[in-house]
């Protein structure tokens, strides 16, 4: 489903965020992306939905060469990928409902169907009573949950989650983790960049650990820190 080969990313200002990254994630897999601040996790995710292009190497998602894809193709790639952004990226002048519905409106789903599915995901993230609020009227954690709701409402093939529990209390974080694992169980490939060691340790899924733009460790059913045995 996702494959990176020899991927490097250097920014115009000289910062090298990724160095020679090789990574394969199969359809239906769940992978944690861990590593210190600035390791290149978000940069790697950004390459997958073509928010940025690699400087070297080939990134492919669902068989498409994402880095060399034609401009016109990009929207169709993105519709197959749900993203929970580290900084949420909600439309500030639209309500929670509108923000979530937007992901369905761009694919021209029928309004009735949109209504049904938005209500469903809002329920899932525990925010049915904040449906009419604007993002600015939500707490940090609530915004984060809306971002997750938007990412999954389109039933994407791939779900990318960048630090999706950073603003959540332990109870809500565990809930969100459960939701992500459930989505994965239903067939969606999930890649989650996170610093939440306890969530990683408890989930016992594949862990890809990055340091300084390189992959240091890639283990199945692993924990956050190297060599920790449960």
């Amino acid at each position, binding site marked *: 489903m996702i494959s990176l080969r020899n991927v490097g990313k250097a920014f115009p200002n000289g910062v090298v965020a990724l160095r020679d990254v090789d990574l394969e994630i199969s359809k239906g897999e769940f992978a944690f992306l861990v590593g210190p601040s600035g390791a290149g996790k978000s940069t790697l995710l950004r390459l997958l939905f073509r928010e940025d292009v690699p400087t070297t190497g080939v990134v492919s998602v669902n068989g498409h060469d994402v880095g060399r894809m034609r401009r016109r193709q990009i929207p169709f790639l*993105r519709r197959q990928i749900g993203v929970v952004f580290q900084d949420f990226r909600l439309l500030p002048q639209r309500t929670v409902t509108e923000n979530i519905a937007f992901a369905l409106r761009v694919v021209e789903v029928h309004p009735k169907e949109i209504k049904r599915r938005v209500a469903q995901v809002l329920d899932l993230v525990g925010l049915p009573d904040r449906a009419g609020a604007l993002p600015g009227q939500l707490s940090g954690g609530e915004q984060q949950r809306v971002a997750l709701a938007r990412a999954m409402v389109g039933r994407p093939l791939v779900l990318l989650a960048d630090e999706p529990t950073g603003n959540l209390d332990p109870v809500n974080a565990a809930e969100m983790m459960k939701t992500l694992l459930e989505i994965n169980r239903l067939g969606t490939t999930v890649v989650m960049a996170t610093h939440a060691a306890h969530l990683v340790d408890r989930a016992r899924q594949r862990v890809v650990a990055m340091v300084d733009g390189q992959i240091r460790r890639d283990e199945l059913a692993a924990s956050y820190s190297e060599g920790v045995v449960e």
Partner: protein
Amino acid sequence: MRLRTWSFCLSEANQNLLRNPVLAIASITTTAVSLLVLGMFLLLTANVNQITSNIENQVAVRAFFKQSTKTAQEQSALAEVRKWPKVRSAKIITRQEALRQLKSEFGDQASVLNSLGTANPLEDSLSVTAKSPADVAPLAKSLGNLTGVVKVSYQSQVVTRLFSLINAIRIVGLGIGILLLLGALLVINNAIRLGIVSRRREIAIMRLVGATESLVHWPFILEGLILGLIGSVLAAVIAWWGYAALYTGAAHSLPFVPLVTPIPTARDVAVLIVVLGVLLGAVGFRLSVRRLARV
């Protein structure tokens, strides 16, 4: 695009307008003002043209023939003059006609001429109107060189000054007109660009959740058209209504100002304003699409 997509774009455009009232009002007012000024300018021009075209037709260069000149010779001179490029019209005024004209021109003072009795001291002449006031002087010179012509005269200082005025208005006016059109385009284009810049973040997010370029573009196009339409209709209504009021007022207080009638002129200008507004909106958008793609 499907119908649902169209209605989506339209409702997007609508919501954007309602959510950014400052930008919307700014665009509408600047469009309206630009077009209104352009419209007023066109109306002014129409009036100047009506008055000047009346007067222009009256300015003639008169070339007087020797009293001995034969009619045939005069006719061949007329035929030649009519071929000159600077000539709008030419005709022969016989000495009999000239005296009649003179008498009628004198009007109240015609009694002065009664002492002439049946004698007629005037000459036959060729009366030529030029295509433009600038042609009058060279035309007079050329007429002086015709065989049989002894004297050339053309009209008084007042008329010359009038043409100075008309020319000044036309030259400066053309400049103002072009500038106004460019200005309106600039203002509308700026409004659209500012709209794009101030919604940069939103556009980026829309793209990130899979909106196609046309879904990103069309709300802007429609928004531009709506703004252009509102602004230009506003300008058109004010221009038409204002001109009609001016016309009525002028007819009462200044009966000797023969303004151009509101219909068809002001109506046509109003229609032109609306067409221009929508057109400018579309052109303004075209110029901004690259900017939008770069956002």
